[in-house]
């Protein structure tokens, strides 16, 4: 057992999972916004990065790490809510390409603004737990307290979000509002409030992903979520955009694929992992691996 724990295979599994949970959280945030408003938010990563800057730079003022995390998530939720109200709301009922174009533009604005305020250089954020790997009988176990924290936190967030959508009245209202706003209104659901809450939830989950990513060795810089967003987007697409579980599975799959390609082939082609998974998934099941087929009326 000890030999297995210290093997390079284990190293790659934990490394892949640690990165995969970040992809999963980004994918989950995309799924939430898609489920609640049917908009693909291309600025998801940049919004999370911006919130992380605002929250985590409070560390400079001597505020504790966990308070900074809370500030980041709260700022993320406020940015999410405001984005829906100001940028997205006027676009409902317009062609689907319009919100995509607006959010790509918003991504550029947020990255430029962040560079202007905080410069483009990488900031390192002291992580709350050690990144030094454990030892067992003198051998290195490729598992650090930070990786354990990262994985457990992500799992908790995912379970909470899945339970919210599946088992709560709010989740039902969010899903109903996205599927048929007019019918939802007739049933007394306050659709416009649900749309805002959907964006707030999504941005909050995105901010947690960005905080985890920035707290590791990766650091925080204005474009630090670009690559993460692409992987998260692929994960959401692989899962079928409708399914929180699919998003999580997609993210983990891509994290693992990248890690193994990096270890056994070349770091330069690691990003191909996600693309290969996307192509294979689309060929096998174009509607997404985890989407329930709505069926055909008979």
């Amino acid at each position, binding site marked *: 057992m000890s030999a297995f724990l210290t093997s390079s295979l284990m190293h790659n599994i934990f490394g892949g999972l640690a990165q995969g949970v970040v992809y999963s959280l980004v994918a989950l945030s995309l799924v939430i916004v898609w489920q609640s408003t049917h908009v693909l938010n291309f600025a998801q990563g940049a919004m999370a990065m911006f919130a992380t800057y605002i929250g985590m730079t409070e560390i400079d003022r001597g505020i504790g790490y966990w308070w900074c995390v809370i500030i980041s998530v709260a700022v993320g939720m406020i940015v999410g809510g405001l984005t829906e109200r100001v940028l997205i709301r006027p676009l409902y009922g317009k062609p689907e390409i319009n919100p995509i174009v607006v959010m790509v533009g918003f991504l550029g604005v947020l990255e430029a603004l962040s560079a202007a305020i905080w410069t483009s250089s990488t900031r390192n954020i002291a992580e709350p737990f050690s990144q030094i790997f454990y030892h067992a009988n003198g051998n290195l176990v490729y598992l650090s307290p930070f990786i354990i924290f990262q994985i457990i936190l992500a799992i908790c967030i995912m379970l909470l979000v899945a339970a*919210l959508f599946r*088992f709560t009245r*709010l989740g*039902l*209202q969010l899903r109903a509002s996205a599927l048929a706003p007019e019918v939802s209104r007739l049933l*007394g659901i306050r659709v416009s409030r649900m749309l805002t809450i959907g964006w707030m939830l999504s941005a909050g989950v995105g901010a947690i992903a960005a905080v985890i990513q920035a707290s590791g060795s990766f650091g925080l810089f204005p474009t630090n979520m670009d690559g993460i967003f692409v992987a998260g987007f692929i994960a959401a697409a692989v899962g079928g955009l409708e399914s929180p579980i699919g998003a999580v599975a997609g993210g983990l799959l891509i994290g693992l694929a990248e890690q193994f390609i990096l270890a056994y082939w070349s770091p330069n082609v690691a990003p191909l992992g996600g693309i290969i998974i996307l192509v294979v998934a689309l060929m096998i099941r174009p509607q997404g691996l985890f989407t329930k087929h709505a069926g055909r*009326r008979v």
Partner: protein
Amino acid sequence: MTYSTSRPITLAFEHVSVRFGGLLALNDVSFEVAEQEIVGLIGPNGAGKTTAFNVACGFQRPTSGTVSFPELGKRGLHPAQLAKVGVARTLQGVGLFNHLSVLENVMAGAQSRPGGGLWSSVMGLPGGLRHERVLRDEAMGQLERLGVATFAEALPGGIPYGIAKKVSIARALMTRPTLLMLDEPASGLDEQELDAFIQLIIELRSTMSVLLVEHNMDFVMQVVNQLVVLNFGQVIARGTPSEISHNPDVLAAYLGLDE
């Protein structure tokens, strides 16, 4: 236009007109739905029935005239306010949420009710969970009442049209309405289902008023107390089913007869 009632009025159209550009979809339409009364809104295709429904539930603003709910003390409501004051509507077609299970669709009908606050719901607190359980049980009860409980976990896309129709009515009943508006409720039902459905509608009358738009005249004649006949956006007749069945204007509108 001889129909009159002494019961309190649930829904009143007063001189309602709706104009779409050059088209007068409703022209000075007036009628009432009284408490515990079933009113059928009938007329040939394009007569303005669905427009009248849309005006009643706030999807369409009248160009002139008013729609009020005298018994509820309300007028000119927005769609989102309807469920709160006890007005439920089903849509032409089915209007179910395709990616929610049948049971979830029915539970969605109770969303305007208080209870199950945001935090207790998100955090899974006992109050929130209890509220969810109560809603689930009530939704199952409605599905059983309509004889479609076996489809509770199915997705709407995979069930027959007649069943989906009943699910949409179960969802409307979850709002605990005092006025139920049904848009073509009998379409897609076979003869046997129709008989059971007639019994259900008649049974509903003891607790609510019903306004329905329907093409199936056999069904309409068996369930309604009052008929309002529209043609080219105008009310051409009002009365009991037997009065309407002998009305020459109605026969002419339906059959294209001169007399």
